[in-house]
Structures are given as C-alpha cells and as structure tokens.
C-alpha cells in the first residue's frame, strides 16, 4: 500500500459559497399551510394540481436532468402510479394512504424495466424512441386489460381516505398533497446531495470518466430510473386521488410533452426549477383560458422561447439572482 499522499493539515481558509441554514427551507411549507383559508375550490384545485406535478417533475428531472439520459417514458411511471392506486382502492377497497407506497414501488419497478435499453448501452435519440415505445405499450395495456383497468372508459376511484378521514374537499387534499410533495422534494434533495446524486451528474457529464472514478455506472443508471419511477409513481397516486377518474388517454404523448415542458421551463437538473416549472406550467392554461384554441400554439412557442433564451430554465434566473439558489451536490 502506498503511504498517505496528503494529510489534511492546517488548511488555508478558503472562501465558501454563501449558505443559508437548512431549516429555513421548512418555512416554505409552513408559510403555505394556511393557504386553503384564502382560496376557493377552483384555485385550491389548481394548487393541488401543482402539488401533483411537483413529484412528477422532480422524478422526471432526475433521469433527464441529473442523469442526462433521453428517457421519454415518464408518463409510463405516472400512469402506473395512478393505476396502482386506483386498482388497489377500487378492487381491494384499500384506503388511499395505504396505496401511496405501492404506487411508488410499482413506479420504481416500471423505472427499472425502462432502464433496460439504457443498460444495454442505448443512448441519445435512439434511447428516446425505445423508451417512448415502452410508455405507449403500457398505455395499450391500460386499454386492453379491461377487467383490471376498466379499459378505455377508465375507472372511477373513490375519494381519497387518510387514516379513515375522507378527503372530499380540495382543502383537505391539499394537506395530504403538500406533505407528499415536501417528502418527495426532501428525499430527492438528500439523494442528489449525496454520492448517489454526484454519480448521476458524473455519468451525465462524462460516463467514461465516471467509471474511471470507480462508479459502477449501470447500477447508478438503474437507481436513477427506479428513483424517478418511485417519485413519479407517487405523483400518479396523487393524480388518481385528485382527479378521481383515470383513463388511458391521460397518459398519452400530449401529457408527455406537458411534463417535458414542466422540467424544461423549470430548469434541467434543478430541483428548485422543477417546483417552479410545475407551478408555472400547471397554471399557464388557466391564464390562456381567454384564448381557447391558441393553447397549443402558445405552449409550443413558449417552450421554443425558453430553450432559446433561457436554456437552463427559471432556476437559472434564480441562480443569477443570488448564489444561494445554485443547486449543490454535497453536504457540509
């Protein structure tokens, strides 16, 4: 064995990036707690929809932003989560809160399955096409597996139930959703700021160099996909609880484009960006309401403009504002 090369001796003080205390983060959900007191059932629903898209976006971002692979199958995880929750509630009569974890786990399983092409070395646009096929095949299964999924009519899911308390009011759902959104954000943040998240980023930037640093890239690709599936699956479960009626058409290519838009507008690879993107893209159609028919055109143009002029999304605006908002991948 070689001798120690460096002994961390008296270090010269180096300027650190400015940091805020971590507990400040908790002020955000805390400040959001009284929201239902001020919102009507319509606005509250839109807020809840934003909260659904928070896990959907952060999960998606792990694969396309952090791991940097062109996986076009996020709606597959979303749909699996929704259907798992729906089927367990409808066929087995389980309360919604019991179905959340299974929805996440089924999503993770789908994530693992979707990582197979990537593990076989398929990359770039070719990977995009492969994973697209995976998502569309699943949608075909939802349509065909009528006894379980209700086929093309979809299934009506009973109102969500948490510990025997039926959430039949948007304000009630809000608390459950806020808790889930916070949990998924915090867990994903912890994952990304550990050696796992750094490995994802290393694989994105230079796969060969990552392997040369002792990172078993395949294992991490699998992990990223599974985590993405897990988080997005939970988002799917929330979707089922919010909408109450799930149909195969909700998981089609249009939905995929929407989810892409959330991540791209928010900022690739940025957790904060995903949350911002979810908020912006979910509420955008509400602002476009006075122009029915223009929605697709405006939406397309919006994405084009963001890619051209704000390639790192809203998160980069924040980061430009103050270094505090720069995403970091370590803990000290």
């Amino acid at each position, binding site marked *: 064995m070689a001798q120690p090369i460096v002994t961390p001796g008296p270090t010269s003080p180096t300027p650190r990036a400015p940091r805020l205390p971590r507990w400040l983060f*908790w002020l955000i959900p*805390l400040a959001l*707690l*009284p929201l*239902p*007191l001020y919102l*009507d*059932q*319509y*606005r509250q*629903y*839109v807020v809840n*929809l934003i909260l659904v898209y928070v896990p959907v976006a952060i999960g998606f971002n792990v694969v396309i932003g952090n791991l940097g692979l062109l996986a076009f199958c996020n709606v597959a995880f979303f749909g699996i989560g929704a259907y798992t929750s729906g089927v367990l509630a409808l066929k087995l009569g389980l309360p919604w809160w019991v179905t959340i974890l299974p929805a996440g786990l089924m999503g993770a399983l789908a994530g693992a399955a979707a990582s197979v092409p990537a593990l076989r070395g398929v990359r770039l646009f070719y990977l995009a096409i492969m994973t697209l096929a995976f998502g569309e095949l699943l949608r075909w299964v939802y*349509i*065909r597996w009528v006894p379980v999924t209700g*086929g*093309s*009519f*979809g299934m*009506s899911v009973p*109102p969500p139930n948490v510990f025997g308390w039926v959430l*039949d*009011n948007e*304000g*009630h759902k809000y*608390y459950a959703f806020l808790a889930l959104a916070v949990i998924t954000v915090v867990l994903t943040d912890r994952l990304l700021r550990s050696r796992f998240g750094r490995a994802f980023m290393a694989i994105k930037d230079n796969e060969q160099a990552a392997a040369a640093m002792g990172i078993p890239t395949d294992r991490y690709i699998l992990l990223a996909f599974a985590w993405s599936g897990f988080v997005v699956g939970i988002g799917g479960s929330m*979707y089922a609880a*919010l*909408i*109450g*009626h*799930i*149909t195969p*058409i*909700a998981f089609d290519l*249009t*939905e995929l484009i929407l989810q892409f838009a959330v991540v791209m507008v928010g900022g690739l690879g940025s957790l904060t960006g995903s949350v911002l993107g979810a908020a912006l893209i979910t509420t955008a*159609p*509400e602002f476009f*309401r006075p122009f*029915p*028919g*223009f*929605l*697709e055109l405006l939406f397309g143009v919006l994405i084009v403009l963001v890619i051209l002029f704000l390639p790192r999304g809203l998160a980069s605006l924040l980061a430009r504002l103050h270094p505090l908002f720069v995403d970091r991948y370590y803990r000290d």
Partner: protein
Amino acid sequence: MRLTKIFLTVAAAVATASPAFADNMQGITDKTIKIGNMGPFSGEAAVFNPLNYGPEAYLRYINAQGGVHGRKFETVFADDACNEAKGIAAARKLIYEDKVFMLMGVPCSGVAMAIKPMLEKEGIPWVGPAANPKLTRPTVPAMFHVTYTGIESGQAMAGFAMSNPALKKIAIVEHSNDWAHGYCNPASEYIKSHGGEVLERIAMERGSTDGTTQALKIKSIGAQAVMGCLYQQELIILLRDMQKFGVTAPVIGALGADFDQTVQQVNNPAAVRDKFFQPYQFKAKIGTPALKEFEDMFTKYLTKDELPKAGPPTNFYYFGIPVAIVTVEAFKRAGASPSREKWIAAMESIKDFDTGVLADKINLSKDNHVGVQRMFAVGLDKDGKQTIYSSWGKAQN
C-alpha cells in the same frame, strides 16, 4: 412538535369552516342567467366544438327574442381540452369563480365522468351530449341527457341491422377508446340478446391509413353485417377497402361521423349505396325545410369563427342544439324566480316535448333523466337517394 401543532390548528380551522354549499340561485340575477359552456376548444377533440356552438346559437336566439322571464342568457365558455385534469379545473372555475347556474356541453365522456362527483355533491345542473350512459343511469338529481347516449345509439345500430331477418352474424369494427366502446358495447349486447351472433370484435385504431386487414377479416369470418364504431376518417377507409375486396356486408356506422361527408369522401357510389347506414337522431334530413329554421339560427347567431370555414353547419351543430332547447324550456316552466330546485323540477315535468330537431320527443321524470329513446336510420337507397329509414327497407314518412 411545534410544527405539528400549527398544522393541526390550521387543518382544524379549514375543516370547521363550513363548506360553502353553492347557493341554489347562483348565477341568476334580475337580468341574466349565467351558463357555463364547456368543451374541447383545443387538442385533438376540438373537432367536436360545434356541439358547444349549437346550443350557444339557440341561447343567442332566445336572447334576441327578449330572453326568458326578462332574463338573458350569459355564456361563459371554458376549454377542457378533453383532458380530465384540465376539465376539472375548467368546471371548478365555472362553478366557484364565475358562479354559473349550470353547465352545458362537455362532449368528452372521460371529462364528464371526472366532474360528475363534483356536480353531484354541489347539485350543479348539467345537460350535455357526452354519450356515457353512466352519467345519468342511475339517475342523479341534477344531470340530464336530452340527446342519445351510447346505449340508445348502439341499440339503434344493432336494432336497425336486425330488423332485417337475414342479418344474424355480425362483426364489430371499433376504435379502442371509450367513445367507440360506448356505442359498440350496447350494440353487442343487443345483438346477443336478440338472437344474433357477434362473430368478432375487430380493432381499427385512430390514425389507421389502411383497412385491408379489417376488410379481409370481415370477409373471411363471413360476417353478414358490420357495426362500425369508427370516426369519420377510419369509417371512410373501411368502406373503401371493403368495396375494394368485394366485401358486400352492409355497414352500420356509429354517430360521430357525418353521413354526408362520409358518403362524399368515399367517393364511390357502389361502396355506400344500400350498404352504408347510420342511426339518425334528427326528425328530418339536414338541409330540408323541416330543419331550415335551425340552419338559419346557426348562420345568423354564430360568428364566422364559430361556424364551419366552408359549407353549411354540420350535424354536430344540430346534435348540440336540443341541449339548449330543453334547458330553456325548463327555465320557462320554472317561473319568474328560478332556483336550481325549481329548474330541476321543471326539467322532470317535461313530457312529449318536441324539440323540432330530434327524431324522438323528450320525456323526463324524477326517475328517468334520459330524455330520448327512438332513433331512425339514414342511408342511400338502391338508386342513391338519401333516405331516412324507420326499419330495414322501410322509409320513414
């Protein structure tokens, strides 16, 4: 701990804040009645938006006559993009923000099913063209069908075919979506329960560019008739390819394709004459004097953007209008100070009411919120003359 306490306090506050049940006079003022008109104005299903403009034309016509009991209708449009999440948002906006009296429209069954629990809970009236029979069966206090659901249409398709005793072995060609299954499931039930046989349910997906497989399959299983639960484009392809391979079984198409356009685009009289039929929901042919009144209404009261870019209003405009006609009739009957309860009671009092458009008269009651049953069929006879049939080979009037 502190966090938990705050959470519990706020949650309790929200829970105890009495859920603001919608006022049963919501949307009614001395001068106006506010109506939410919801449908797909964007996305693939936007082709169905004449179902929203049809009733709007009628409301504008009524407004031009001075309104009902001195009140004029005020419509708030909302786009649901035929997507459940967007649809719920749209419906909630209409109900809680715009505070409309009732909802009209919502042609997409998925969206209608998704907003149903909310409408039920809040007692918001709905009248619309979504074909899913589960919307009004079992009866829900405030939801009404005054147009044909999938059950009536599907049974009419099968019933028309089976009114010809020679047609017993029937094949179904359908899209794999709720729309198609909404028609072909009841059709299939009807065939089986009336001594016929469903040989095979053949899939033909949206966007198909070729119907060779389906046509050859129909031929090889020896089907005597075909139920085609297909949108217009695929129906045209199927008819064309059946002709190409000499498959002579008649095709009964579902509502959802425009008969005239289909015939015109197949562009081959031999492929449709005495061979292609469709249930017919109107009392007379579109473009004939019996329906002229409505055509004038559309062209007079709708804007250029709301009308077809070319040609006269299509059958979707006519299919949409009974929704408004019956709604207005109920407002007339509900008296000078309408409330939701009075309006619903007025709806349920409607018997043998002739809309002037539909083949059947409207009959509603406390236990039955599906207003129409009987349909005709339309087709070209052996000479190529468009005919409305009451049963196989038997022309109506």
